[in-house]
């Protein structure tokens, strides 16, 4: 099969096109806009048979997406950052409707201060919404992830919406060779949406998403969302296996890279994990037994696969591209919990927060993180969490502050 140079955004649009989406509620936001622009162009040229409606906000966009899914059509939508947060109420709400659809989020750091560069605080804010989450590291994975996401979302053992996440700029605006799946093969992998008993029809009364009184029915309905999400972990391997057989590309819940004999591993999500891969290669050349474990699926949390991947490792460097103020890295917390109570010697975890707001993570920083994790393993003691921030950056900040905090030039005049 031939490969084409695509940005992550266009790869997402291709995923939607191959999924045969019928409805696109949309709202522009950088760095996601290219997705909806691409699809709208295909709709105009007749290459896609899809209805697109531009709403007046992401809150309305997610509402329309959920409502249309509840009405029984295949829905795709996309947003980023502030937009995801603006629609947050409806993420929780529509997940409870048990109406499956797919939302691509292009990760971007959150205000304040407002920024355009990527990190994962936006997507992690949606962690507990009931949406499933797939985190992509390449443009190919974005396209593949959209197809896999629909199979997962629409599986009758699941029936939950899914977010496919990619990093702003590093994937959204970065072109890479992407294999565009054959449309017929895609249609075989992903047959038309069978809405089951979803849908509003004359003669078939349906009161959807009604209120409950009391904690018992509420507990039942929310816990069913949890059980459905857990089912997604169970059904994922067969869907991913089918995908692999159909297209020759794996789509694992957890990717492991040079892990088998590794003593120290990085744990990272998203496109920056490919930087970790590069560092792994560099360290391997230097004779160090280092690997990478990358959760692709974050919800449901693939605890079993992660435990298996991390079993026997001595040191783990968890690199969080997010920050939970007052706690630290979110992934570090989740990995710690997953390893708690496992049989065998426990690995020592080192927590690093890096890449906030798109801040670069240099190759030598990965090497240093591996060294810290190795020393910690040897000492049997977890080090203090660290923010990746260098002396040069501190100086740069001081220079900026010298301007920001000085009295204005005009005032200084005599």
């Amino acid at each position, binding site marked *: 099969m031939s490969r084409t140079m695509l940005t992550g955004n266009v790869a997402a649009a291709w995923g939607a096109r191959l999924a045969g989406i019928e409805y696109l509620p949309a709202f522009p936001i950088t760095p996601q806009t290219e997705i909806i622009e691409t699809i709208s162009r295909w709709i105009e040229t007749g290459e896609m048979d899809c209805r697109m409606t531009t709403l007046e906000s992401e809150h309305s966009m997610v509402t329309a997406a959920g409502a249309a899914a509840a009405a029984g059509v295949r829905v795709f939508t996309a947003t980023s950052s502030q937009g995801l947060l603006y629609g947050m109420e409806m993420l929780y709400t529509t997940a*409870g*409707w*048990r109406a499956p659809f797919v939302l691509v989020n292009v990760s971007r750091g959150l205000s304040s201060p407002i920024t355009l560069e990527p990190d994962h605080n936006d997507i992690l804010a949606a962690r507990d919404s009931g949406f499933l989450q797939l985190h992509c590291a390449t443009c190919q994975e974005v396209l593949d992830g959209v197809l896999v996401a629909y199979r997962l979302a629409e599986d*009758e*053992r699941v*029936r939950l919406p899914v977010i496919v996440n990619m990093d702003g700029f590093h994937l959204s605006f970065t072109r890479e060779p992407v294999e565009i799946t054959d449309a017929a093969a895609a249609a075989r992998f992903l047959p038309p949406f069978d809405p*089951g*008993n979803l849908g509003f029809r004359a003669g*078939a*009364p*349906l*009161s*959807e*998403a*009604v*209120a*409950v*009184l*009391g904690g018992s*029915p509420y507990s*039942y*309905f929310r*816990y*069913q969302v949890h*059980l*459905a999400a*857990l*089912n997604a972990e169970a059904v994922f391997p067969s869907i991913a296996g089918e995908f692999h057989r159909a297209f020759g590309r794996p789509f694992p819940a957890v990717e492991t890279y040079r892990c088998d004999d590794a003593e120290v591993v990085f744990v990272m999500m998203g496109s920056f994990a490919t930087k970790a891969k590069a560092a792994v290669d560099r360290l391997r050349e230097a004779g160090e037994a280092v690997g990478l474990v990358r959760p692709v699926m974050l919800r449901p949390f693939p605890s079993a696969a992660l435990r298996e991947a991390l079993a026997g490792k001595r040191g783990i460097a968890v690199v969080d591209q997010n920050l939970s103020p007052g706690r630290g890295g979110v992934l570090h917390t989740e990995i710690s919990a997953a390893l708690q109570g496992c049989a065998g010697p426990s690995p020592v975890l080192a927590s690093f927060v890096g890449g906030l707001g798109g801040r670069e993570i240099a190759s030598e920083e990965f090497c240093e993180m591996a060294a810290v994790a190795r020393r910690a393993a040897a000492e049997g003691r977890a080090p203090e969490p660290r923010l990746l921030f260098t002396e040069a950056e501190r100086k740069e900040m001081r220079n900026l502050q010298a301007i920001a905090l000085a009295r204005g030039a005009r005032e200084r005049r005599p």
Partner: protein
Amino acid sequence: MYRIRFHGRGGQGVKTASRILGTAFFLSGFEVQDAPRYGAERRGAPIFAYVRADRRPIHERGVIRDPGLVLVADETLVAISAASVLEGVGARTAFLVHSGEETQTWRDRLDLAGPVVTLPVAGPHGEGLEARYVGAACAAAAACLAGVVSLGAVEEAVREELEGLADEVIARNREHARWAYGLMEPLRGCVEPDPAHPAGPIPPPGWVELPFEDARVSAPATHAGVTSTLVKTGLWRTVRPVIEHARCRGCWWVCGSLCPDGVIGVDEAGRPWIDYDHCKGCMVCLSQCPNRAIDAIPERDARGAESAGGEK
């Protein structure tokens, strides 16, 4: 610990009663919790409120399920199972009901083993106890039955809880509190504090594994139409509109359209009829009937007439 539950209807001052009693206990040096509990229902619907009081810090929370004293501001609630007036009423539970009937009648009717007392509907002056003072009267009665809160504390609590209302209203509430407190003097202290924890073996909670169920059944969606009629909102009603067919001119389009709940239908003869299972007793029909053909009958009397007539 004293565990006391008030039952009434939305708008009857049950929440205020619990606050007056809570404050009265607090002023008497107790640790206290008071809280109202209401769901989606509105004015006229059964609600309850509760008070816990103890000399030691209170660690319990939430609805009282094992009351030492239950007070019922509206006797029509007792027969309504959804009102749960009798929930947790045990051998030692004292029971006060605002009623014109004898205590023995209530004791026999409900097979109560604990002390039973009525708050007479005649009121302090024999002219009938106005609904707006029932709350203060019930709070004062509860204070006296518990026996550890002085009348002075109750009167001070009435003043604090009703602050902002007209002086005359507060004075009338205090008068009703004094009246009810005095009435209960012969039974003063009949409600004894219960132990913090029930004695005996601790029963298992009966947990089950909640299995995954298909979204077809496990989403909060109702696939049947017009199921709301299973909810008998007629229970909210304290006064019943009765169409006097001799006076009715059959203009059903007036009452039928204006009834907010749409409970007035038309029979084959073109005469309007009222669905009492669902009529909330708002009386819009009565006030709008052009020929004044609708009467207001207290629900107590209407039900009495029904049972006398052998009807359901």
